[in-house]
């Protein structure tokens, strides 16, 4: 379980995240939604210690993020940011092998090789494993990075807008993989996501943020409702039930 208590973050004098307390439940997909500038990515970055908080406390399974040793945390939680631009000449397999760094410190054991191979297979990248990253398409690259995260084998996986720049097919594929990771392997996934229909169809819990504060927190049923979404996005959104999925129609 990830618990954030009264977390603050200031950029200069601006409060980007203000007194936020959330709980990310174990074994579920939690989506963070909200308008641009709501502080979702900042919050996720703080949970994954990419940013330090200016107040409050964040714990992952009772480990304090601010005090825990980096290497211990790297076996517990992984993060994938949206901008992954690497200038190195790396093959897919080499990138995925980096996921084992917290365990092997760069010297891969047989055990590590097994994890790497398995992660590549899981993301269906076997044919591409010796291809260089800069030769891959956006969707393939995203899959390669996710394979690295899978090889890292952490209980908690945080993703910052993983669907950015992906077409429908790849976006759905990505969400299905995340779903599978949660359902089959008991991982806990938290994502920052802009497309509320993806949040509605694939997640269990939704946390809605606005202006640095948490507006709503609850299950998909509770959040995907016209009046709640109006409060968050300040626009009229109709909800239709299509094939047992709640679909938001906001193209008015």
């Amino acid at each position, binding site marked *: 379980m990830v618990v954030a208590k009264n977390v603050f973050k200031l950029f200069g004098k601006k409060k980007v995240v203000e007194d936020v307390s959330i709980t990310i439940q174990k074994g579920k997909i939690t989506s963070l939604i909200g308008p641009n500038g709501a502080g979702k990515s900042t919050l996720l970055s703080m949970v994954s210690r*990419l940013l330090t908080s200016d107040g409050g406390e964040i714990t992952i399974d009772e480990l304090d993020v601010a005090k825990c040793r980096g290497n211990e945390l790297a076996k517990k939680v992984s993060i*994938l940011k949206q901008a992954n631009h*690497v*200038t190195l000449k790396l093959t897919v397999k080499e990138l995925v092998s980096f996921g084992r760094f*917290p365990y092997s410190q760069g010297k891969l054991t047989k055990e590590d090789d097994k994890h790497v191979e398995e992660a590549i297979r899981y993301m269906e990248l076997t044919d591409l494993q010796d291809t260089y990253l800069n030769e891959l398409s956006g969707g393939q690259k995203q899959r390669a990075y996710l394979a690295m995260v899978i090889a890292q084998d952490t209980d908690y996986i945080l993703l910052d807008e993983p669907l950015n720049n992906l077409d429908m097919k790849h976006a759905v594929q990505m969400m299905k993989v995340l779903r599978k990771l949660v359902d089959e392997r008991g991982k806990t996934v938290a994502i920052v996501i802009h497309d509320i229909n993806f949040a509605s169809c694939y997640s269990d819990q939704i946390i809605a943020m606005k202006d640095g504060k948490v507006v709503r927190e609850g299950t998909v049923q509770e959040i995907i409702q016209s009046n709640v979404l109006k409060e968050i996005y300040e626009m009229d959104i109709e909800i239709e039930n299509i094939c047992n999925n709640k679909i938001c129609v906001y193209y008015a």
Partner: protein
Amino acid sequence: MNLKWKVFILAVLSLVLIGIYMLTNAGGNWDYIMPRRGMKILAMVITGGTIAVSTVIFQTITNNRILTPSILGLDSLYMLIQTSLVFIIGSGSVMIMNRNVNFMITVAVMVVFSGLLYKLLFKREESNIYFLLLLGLIFGTFFSSISTFMQVLLDPNEFLRVQDKMFASFNNIHTDLVWIGLIAIALGVIWMLPYLKYLDVVALGKDQAVNLGVDYDRVVKHLFLIIAVFISIATALVGPITFLGLLVANVTYEVMKTYRHSYLFAASIFISIIALVGGQLLVERVFTFATTLSVIVNFVGGVYFLYLLLRERS
């Protein structure tokens, strides 16, 4: 080709060049020539190796292939130190005449300056690479302006003393300094060892490195200070020479085509030795001292730099 083979071939090439340099054109005075040439070679290996390694580390930390540590303004600071010593105390003073004292002062000031620069830059959370470039450039320009100002006012004889220091040269290496430098660098290498394994990961960028459990700020701080110490020692030993790093580091990446720093380091050190010993051979045997090593290195490096810029465009 296998990476180990590439390194091996580079090693053989540098040994061959060293061999040619040591053994040809001796004129029979072996007792006189061997120790002198040996010292030069040793100095070239030390400076070449440290410049190469620190440039590779610097480019890894900054994730940028066209930066060299000279952007930090250490070269200009070196000139400023030398100029102000002559300007304020005079060329006859012990700080200029005694190379050991001069070496110590230079290294100390440069390391302290780098420490301060580090404090300024990396204490901020959003340590921005462009901010670093800007500050380094401004400091560099500032230092060289002050140096030029003082040099203009200097007595011509005193100025000659400063001019001696303006170009990297292996022709006048002081034996004591080589040994001091060697010890200092050995200490630096021991300091560096625990951080080497992190370099491959740091090359992925800050976010990925933190994600993979690297204590990024601490690692980068130590690497940065190690770079500063290495550059300071190399510069204090032979003069401003950081430009060599750009050439060597980029040739290394092209030759090795790998991200693994253990291979990059080995290859860059040998390429550096090839460049320096080869350059020195040209200076001594082809141009018969009509030009300086840094002119040759800067010329080749400059042409390569232009090529790099043009290629990045297309």
